[in-house]
């Protein structure tokens, strides 16, 4: 490292330490001040929630005497919906005291205290008022946020602009409306910048970041190409066996790495193997991508949708393994049988690799060689350590994002690759996509769209958990064929959260597992259902084996039906 680099890092560390000290001292001072004030103040606490019993944060609460202009006390509801009003000692609390609550997207409410509560407050005792219900209000901001969110989904589905750009356009439009709209009509306000950032799930961002660094190291070792070549060797020209081995490789890899990277690295070598065997590459590629989409949900880190679900619902690595893996294995067996059936003509003839020239065979062998065996060994050790921490970490509140970051750092320290190259390998575009997506989903949560959808689904399924589970699995599977599954899952999480809180028995988190199954296996239903499909199709098209939308639909949709049905059976067996 250069001297300038070392100096820059040292300055950074000093600045960070100074900031931490400053933050700590100001927090301590504020805490002392609050303790002194509390000793001689009358305190009124309360809880504010919406019509679905969900806490409402950010409501401005004001205590006011009708005759007085100035409020007696002011406060704001916190994330758990609770608020505290501190009345100064020199203020007289009269019998007509009213508590006014205001929050964008809700009707303003004012309540009178019950006589007992008022007496306690007047006597200088801490008092707790009755819970307050804020009623949702459909404002122009509701329609604009909904329109922008749908526009973002359409732009992503159409693929006319990059997904990240579509999400950024959505987030920027929401900010523009929030900040400029109120100049025309105050009901155009959606949320401010600081509130929007509270919707960003940093656990997800850092978990993906850490895993990206690990993947960047692993992918350079050549393990995928080696595994695919071994499948070619082991199958010895038996194409039915080759497909099964390749499906297992793609599935296992997808359970620990993201599906796109798996297919990105598997597709070129698979096409080469198919060309060597004079067979249709799609008979190998389609089963591989189906397996990748199905098996990815076995673990927390296997798919971005699982990362989102795990973080939101506090579902751990081992929870996914225990609750989903048997269902995934069942679906995989069905998928293997199905793939053998649909490609029976292509798979029944033995591969004709005998005709391969020594030059091409040598080239194929060269591709199937581990390029960095030392790095692979180290990555295996660190990967095993990460899995142990993912599984055991929940016992000591170690969040998966921290495990991923620690694993990535350990790998970088041990392997000492070019750090700039590794940082460049992080897909920042994806991280920006997630941040913008969280903001867009936050906007429709803020204006109440998610709440209305949740209430609608809640009314439909009532308190029937089995019906709710089937609805979530199949609705998310079918919708994932037309809507990108990541934004869909992000939008559905609060809905599932609401259903989990209201349907008896749903505390087992079965509805979250149903969402995981539906959104990931639904990706097999159409070409645009999953990013891994698009990458596979893109590479195959460039190698002269185009996968059209219709071709994928004809083979993928039955795969969706079979795998989702088998996974649904498992969910019934396991949770009911």
């Amino acid at each position, binding site marked *: 490292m250069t001297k300038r680099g070392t100096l820059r890092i040292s300055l950074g560390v000093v600045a960070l330490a100074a900031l931490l000290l400053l933050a700590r001292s100001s927090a301590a001072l504020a805490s002392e001040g609050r303790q002194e004030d509390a000793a001689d103040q009358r305190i009124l606490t309360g809880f504010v929630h919406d019509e679905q019993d969900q806490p409402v944060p950010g409501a401005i609460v004001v205590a006011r005497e009708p005759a007085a202009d100035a409020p007696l006390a002011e406060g704001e509801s916190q994330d758990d919906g609770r608020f505290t009003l501190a009345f100064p000692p020199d203020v007289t609390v009269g019998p007509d005291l009213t508590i006014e609550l205001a929050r964008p997207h809700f009707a303003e409410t004012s309540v009178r205290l019950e006589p007992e509560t008022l007496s306690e407050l007047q006597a200088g005792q801490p008092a707790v008022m009755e819970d307050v219900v804020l009623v949702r209000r459909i404002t122009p901001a509701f329609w604009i946020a909904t329109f922008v969110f749908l526009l973002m989904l359409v732009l992503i589905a159409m693929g006319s602009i990059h997904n990240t750009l579509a999400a950024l356009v959505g987030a920027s439009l929401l900010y523009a409306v929030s900040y400029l709209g109120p100049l025309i009509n105050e009901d155009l306000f959606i949320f401010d910048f600081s509130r929007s950032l509270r919707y960003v799930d940093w656990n997800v961002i850092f978990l993906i970041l850490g895993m990206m660094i690990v993947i960047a190291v692993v992918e350079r070792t050549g393990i995928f190409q080696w595994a695919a070549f071994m499948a070619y060797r082991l199958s010895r020209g038996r194409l039915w066996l080759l497909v099964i081995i390749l499906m297992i490789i793609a599935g296992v890899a997808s359970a620990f790495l993201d599906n796109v990277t798996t297919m990105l690295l598997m597709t070129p070598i698979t096409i080469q193997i198919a060309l060597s065997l004079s067979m249709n590459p799609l008979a190998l590629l389609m089963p591989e991508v189906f397996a990748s989409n199905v098996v990815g949900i076995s673990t927390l880190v296997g798919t971005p949708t699982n990362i989102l679900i795990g973080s939101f619902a506090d579902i751990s690595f081992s929870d996914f393994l225990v609750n989903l893996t048997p269902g995934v294995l069942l679906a995989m067996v069905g998928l293997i049988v199905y793939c053998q059936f649909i490609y029976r003509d292509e798979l029944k003839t033995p591969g004709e690799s005998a005709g391969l020239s020594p*030059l091409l065979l040598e080239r194929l062998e060269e591709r199937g060689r581990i390029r960095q065996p030392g790095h692979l060994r180290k990555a295996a050790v660190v990967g095993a350590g990460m899995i142990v921490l993912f599984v055991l970490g929940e016992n000591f509140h170690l969040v998966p994002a921290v495990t991923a970051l620690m694993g990535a750092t350990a790998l970088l320290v041990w392997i000492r690759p070019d750090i700039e190259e590794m940082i460049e390998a992080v897909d920042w575009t994806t991280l920006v996509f997630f941040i913008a997506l969280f903001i867009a989903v936050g906007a429709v949560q803020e204006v109440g769209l998610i709440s209305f959808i949740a209430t609608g689904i809640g009314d439909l399924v009532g308190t029937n958990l089995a019906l709710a589970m089937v609805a979530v699995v199949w609705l998310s599977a079918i919708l994932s064929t037309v809507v990108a599954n990541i934004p869909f899952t992000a939008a559905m999480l609060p809905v599932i959260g609401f259903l989990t809180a209201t349907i008896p028995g749903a505390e087992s988190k079965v509805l979250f597992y149903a969402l995981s199954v539906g959104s990931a296996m639904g990706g097999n239903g159409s070409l645009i259902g999953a990013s891994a499909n*698009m990458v596979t199709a893109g590479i195959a098209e460039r190698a002269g084996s*185009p996968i059209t939308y219709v071709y994928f639909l004809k083979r993928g949709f039955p795969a969706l039906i079979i795998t989702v049905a088998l996974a649904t059976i498992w969910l019934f067996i396991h949770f009911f």
Partner: protein
Amino acid sequence: MSGIVCPIRGGPASRPTIDRAIALAQESGLPIYFLFVLNLDFLMHTMHTQTGTISRELRELGEFILLTAQTRAEAAGVEAEGIIREGDTVREEIAALSREIDADYVVMGRPREAQDTNVFTHAMLELLSEELEAETGATVIFAGEQPA
């Protein structure tokens, strides 16, 4: 320098194109320059921007596909070379290579079906042929079956 430029992608549709180029090379005694164009615009439809990795993998794949074609040409006693180019449009890369080697012929595959999502549509073929011939001086030959 002179020769035959033959852009290929490697699938079954490329076989008649390769065969036509080999036959033409045997008749004329000209070498073949098989061309594989790397183009990453499909990444637009995904979140991923791992262009370095994808470009490396596609290059490896392209080299293998070109080697397959070269092997067939050499087995037929024809001199052949494989060339990989990165570019946004296949058409421009064909024109650029044809100018560079002062090509006599460009042998290209014809889409097998009218609805095939090929790089070129049937409607564009005639226009493309005229443009390439005017731009490079090479004779453009389409291999494969004539659409119904």
